[in-house]
């Protein structure tokens, strides 16, 4: 029995039980010991991984509330799934009140860490990486909370995911901060989620830096209230290596931020530069082959972009992707910093968009702008584009900071 049990003196808040620290060092049986610890743990316990590389062949999972898993640093404590035989994830979390801290999960066959239906889940100084660089055979997501609440991702590093490095889907109350996402298809993606702050992160060397998406035919739709601020979003020029069929497969190489079909998104005080296709795209969702989902609103609304610093963009547009191809043609090669596809419900295209739903642009320096005028474009009329952003210069209505109920 190589597991060391240390009975701690920690009293877990509402429980009178004494919580344990379970230490599992690397060994031949470490996989079984970690999994057993994750099954036998009780509320308040901590599972400690030590220095070294753990070889893991089957997906691990945790379903006990109020458990902390710690390592001794994301460079020192590594769960290596290079020889993974089973499991669609490296680590699956399905319980509440979970903290994951100071370790790395590398080279999983599928997603690195997935948390489903978890309330109060924190990822602190975690690294997820596919170490052979961008490759279509890499797993889809690095950090992947879905249908979760009160999600904190702080100080994490996500590298090489063939979909999104940090992906938060169908969740609410989310903070992603102080993290680095690089060499993924999408660096950070907030999808079908409510109340998210994405702040002070670095998204670089991805295909697209930060995506705020909403998709149809899902249990939670109507993504809204997302603040993207104080981030460095630069040099996202890696060729799109997503497997086809996935929505991120459509992202053009060289995109800073894409906002798709969300409401109430505020993008401010970011440094956005050196993205070869364009810095920011605001687009609607459409799929000609799909029947429409009547509960789904495919158009972006109430999008505010202000106080950002823009650097070079459009110098190497990925015109093989539809979005960039159309834009390149319409802009005659003069790609904008900020692009809006202009698509609205038919009634609004004719009668105009409600004031409070219009895009707001302010204090973005010399940033250039382009919106398509879809009716003119579709009817092949002259002047199908509009580069004048003065009409969108309106007072900014700041969104409230996101609060999460965390045990931290």
């Amino acid at each position, binding site marked *: 029995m190589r597991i060391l049990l240390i009975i701690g003196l920690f009293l877990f808040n509402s429980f009178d039980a004494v919580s344990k620290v379970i230490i599992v060092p690397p060994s031949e049986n470490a996989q079984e010991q970690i999994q057993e610890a994750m099954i036998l743990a009780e509320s308040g316990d901590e599972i400690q991984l030590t220095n070294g590389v753990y070889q893991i062949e089957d997906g691990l999972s945790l*379903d006990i509330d109020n458990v902390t898993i710690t390592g001794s640093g994301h460079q020192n404590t590594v769960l290596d799934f290079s020889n993974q035989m089973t*499991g669609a994830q490296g680590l699956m979390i399905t319980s509440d009140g979970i903290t994951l801290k100071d370790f790395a999960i590398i080279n999983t066959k599928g997603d690195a860490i997935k948390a489903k239906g978890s309330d109060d889940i924190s990822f602190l100084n975690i690294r997820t990486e596919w170490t052979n660089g961008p490759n279509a055979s890499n797993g*889809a997501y690095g950090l992947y909370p879905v249908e979760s609440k009160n999600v904190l991702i702080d100080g994490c590093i996500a590298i090489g995911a063939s979909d999104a490095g940090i992906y938060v889907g169908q969740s609410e109350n989310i903070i992603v901060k102080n993290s680095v996402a690089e060499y993924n298809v999408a660096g950070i993606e907030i999808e079908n989620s409510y109340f998210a702050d994405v702040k002070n992160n670095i998204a670089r060397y991805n295909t697209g830096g930060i995506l705020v998406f909403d998709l149809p035919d899902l249990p939670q739709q109507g993504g809204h209230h997302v603040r993207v601020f104080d981030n460095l979003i630069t040099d996202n020029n890696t060729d799109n290596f997503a497997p*086809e069929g996935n929505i991120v497969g459509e992202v053009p190489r060289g995109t800073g931020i894409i906002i798709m079909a969300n409401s109430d998104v505020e993008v401010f005080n970011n440094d956005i530069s050196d993205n070869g296709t364009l810095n920011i795209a605001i687009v609607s969702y459409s799929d000609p082959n799909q029947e429409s989902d009547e509960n789904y609103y495919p158009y972006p609304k109430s999008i505010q972009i202000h106080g950002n610093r823009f650097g070079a963009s459009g110098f190497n547009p990925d015109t093989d992707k539809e979005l960039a191809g159309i834009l390149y043609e319409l802009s005659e090669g003069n790609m904008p910093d900020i692009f809006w596809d202009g698509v609205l419900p038919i009634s609004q295209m004719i009668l105009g968009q409600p004031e409070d739903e219009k895009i707001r642009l302010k204090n973005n320096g010399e940033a250039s702008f382009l919106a398509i005028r879809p009716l003119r474009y579709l009817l092949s009329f002259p002047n199908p584009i509009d580069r004048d952003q003065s009409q969108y210069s309106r007072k900014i209505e700041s969104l409230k900071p996101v609060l999460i109920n965390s045990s931290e």
Partner: protein
Amino acid sequence: MKRFLLRLILIIILIPTNLYSQVNDSAILADPPPKLLSEYGFFLNTKDQITVPGVLPYELITSLFSDYADKHRFVYVPKGKIAAYQKNSVFSFPVGSVLIKTFSYEPINDQRSERHLIETRLLIRKDSGWDALTYVWDEEGQEASLALAGKTVKANYISNDGRQLDIRYRVPNKNQCKECHLENESIVPIGPKPRNLNRDYSYLEGTMNQLEKWMSIKFIDAYPEKINSVVDFMDSSKPINDRARAYLDINCGHCHAPEGSASNSGLYLDLLETREKQLGVFKGPVATGRGSGGLDYSIVPGHPDESILLYRMISDAPDIMMPESGRSVMHKEAVDIIYQWIEEMQ
């Protein structure tokens, strides 16, 4: 028939010495659970999976695929208690009930003369709800030990069409049990719904419909007169749509349901689902990664080769294959049926 005679003889031999053998009700509700399966007292004979009186064998019409393992199912309801019928659901079993399922590989001519017992899974109805435990058999098939963290067992199998398969059989850990058995926040049994039990079984005392039998020995309080049963997916006399839906129901529908582990996918494969989009017809992939295989929709009617659903049933790569656990080799017979189903779909 030979097997039946053998069982009969065994029982006749064994009964005198085990006349008073009965299930240990206190072991069933013990916390922590017994380390050894024998402590429950379910079996008179382990190799032949012969149970003590009161532990009743049953079979499902269409069952979950588990790497071609054979399954031996039993149900135990404590004396004086009764399971209640619930519409479209598993019976509501009383506290102390156990659903027992042993997984094994049958003898292979010339290679293995004996049955290879792998594991026995228990779903125990406790005060707090269902608990899932699994016990892994020793090599002799005499005793099985609790394996909370799961285990890997090497097994082999020769299919009817002569394919020899080396199987890295994964005994699920407790969390993996939940992966499939979770509905909202609780563990629930999957198989024993009236619609999947409504078939005959050859009991020692004669063949009888299972629901009638359960009623006659007061295991259940009622069952519906008219049951919209699933079909046996291997029964080629049945319509292809019924066969495919029966298979998807029991193999996928527990996770791919609004309350299941795959709720976030929006793809729902329960037998009662009727909406085409939710069943996958022209439904795009979500958070699928390599699982999409470069394809656009779960099901493209008439084009099985363009359908993600089939692609993921064929694959054995951990991040692509469906189901995510419980299968390491392709279920060829099922793939053929789903292929035909999509091909004939309008």
